[in-house]
């Protein structure tokens, strides 16, 4: 039912980009501490491989826990703000505010309350992730088809039925927009959260590499961060395609576009 994704052109394109990068670095002989060539990054990656998995998993774990927590918070707040116009007026500004508290100010408080364990980091990631989910889902609720709302009301649907049977399914595409954004941010969120003190993780790895001027290692970390993030994004896109499969079913098959 779902169209097979053809990876050919993407892989080719990436290969060309990497080649261009490599060529640029060699041609202008850019210093490796400024911008290392892909080949060098790759060598470093292979070389350091043994120490990478633990860092990768540490960050991935924080990112995923934070994303899930953010998902829960994002959904709950979207629903609450949608169902209550008053609460929306009261709480929406606070949510926007929450996106504007720099770690500098948050860190001491989080550490005081939660110490140096996983919790404060997961909370930082959740704080980053919940917001796009709230905003997108809330806007999705607002776009529910007017005639279907009319039908639901005429048919005597309760507020909850109207929500679960109509508004929620029709907000799904918007929700997934927000969820994909959240997934993209979650890994960087985890990296930043590691500034709250972590023993391992890609963020720690990157900072140490940066402070000892190992730009190649910084790029290895970035590579892993980006890879993790792409993976999460892809996973959610798959979920989206599966959930919204009715949108793409048949009909389009014979179509010319």
């Amino acid at each position: 039912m779902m169209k097979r994704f053809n990876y050919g052109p993407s892989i080719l394109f990436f290969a060309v980009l990497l080649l261009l990068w490599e060529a640029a670095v060699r041609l202008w002989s850019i210093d490796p501490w400024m911008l290392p060539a892909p080949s060098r990054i790759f060598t470093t990656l292979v070389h350091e491989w043994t120490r990478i998995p633990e860092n990768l998993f540490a960050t991935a774990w924080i990112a995923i826990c934070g994303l899930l927590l953010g998902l829960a918070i994002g959904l709950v707040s979207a629903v609450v703000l949608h169902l209550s116009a008053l609460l929306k007026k009261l709480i929406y500004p606070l949510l926007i505010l929450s996106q504007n508290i720099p770690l500098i100010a948050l860190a001491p408080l989080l550490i005081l309350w939660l110490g140096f364990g996983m919790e404060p980091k997961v909370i930082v990631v959740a704080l980053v992730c919940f917001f796009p989910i709230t905003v997108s889902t809330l806007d999705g609720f607002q776009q529910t088809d007017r005639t279907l709302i009319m039908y639901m009301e005429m048919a005597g649907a309760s507020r909850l039925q109207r929500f679960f049977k109509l508004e929620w399914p029709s907000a799904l595409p918007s929700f997934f927009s927000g969820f994909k954004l959240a997934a993209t941010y979650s890994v960087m969120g985890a990296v930043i959260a590691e500034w709250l003190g972590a023993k391992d993780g890609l963020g720690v790895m990157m900072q140490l590499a940066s402070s000892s001027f190992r730009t190649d290692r910084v790029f290895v970390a970035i590579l892993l961060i980006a890879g993790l993030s792409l993976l999460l994004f892809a996973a959610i896109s798959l979920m989206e395609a599966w959930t919204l499969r009715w949108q793409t079913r048949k009909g389009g098959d014979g179509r010319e576009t």
Partner: protein
Amino acid sequence: MAVKLEVKELTFAYDRQPIIENLSLEVKPGEFVSLIGPSGSGKSTLFYLIGGIYKPKRGEILLDGKPIHGKRGHIAYMPQQPSLFPWRTIEQNVRLAQELNGHLDPSHVQSLLKKAGLDHVAHSYPHELSGGMQQRAAFIRALASKQELLCLDEPFGALDALTRTHMQQWLLSVLETERRTVLFITHSIEEALLLSDRIYVLSRQPMRVIREISVPYPRGDRFSLRGTTDWMALHREIENLLLPK
């Protein structure tokens, strides 16, 4: 028990322009009442008022003697536009009305689908159906709902003559087995004559009752009676009522 639905001196406006003014009508239990009136007069709006999603400016709507304006969930309803949920298959769409009332009855849904000629598309999505098929789906969704008062807004407008006759006869047979009261909007005078016990002919701007007509033929005979001179005379009478003076 005298009346099922009573509309008393109802007045309503979306903005300044009054849509409905001092409209009074009633429907007895088990009765089949049709509403005929010009396009844009306010028939669908009247349904919204009965369904409780708008509040009348003045007047009352009583169901079984109790006021229901502003209250919902008392009617089985088929809207003018099919209003099927695009992410639900036809079967799931038909089930919807039952889900809302909390009594699922899958075998009933299956038999409805079959009778409407939609069993082969039960697992298709609405956009894969023709206009007439969507309309039938919306119709059986309303039938699947167990509320006694059935409000149908032009249920057969997009059907060909044959399918239409099928559906009309089926509707009548349903009414014989289930205890239902029907309020029926149609633009076809013939359809109104075929199905109804009484017909309200309505005017526009604002909508008021011009004439209330009792159809004098027994329901069972009407399909054979149509076309007779008497029948045609009644047909023409209604037609003339709708013509502007």
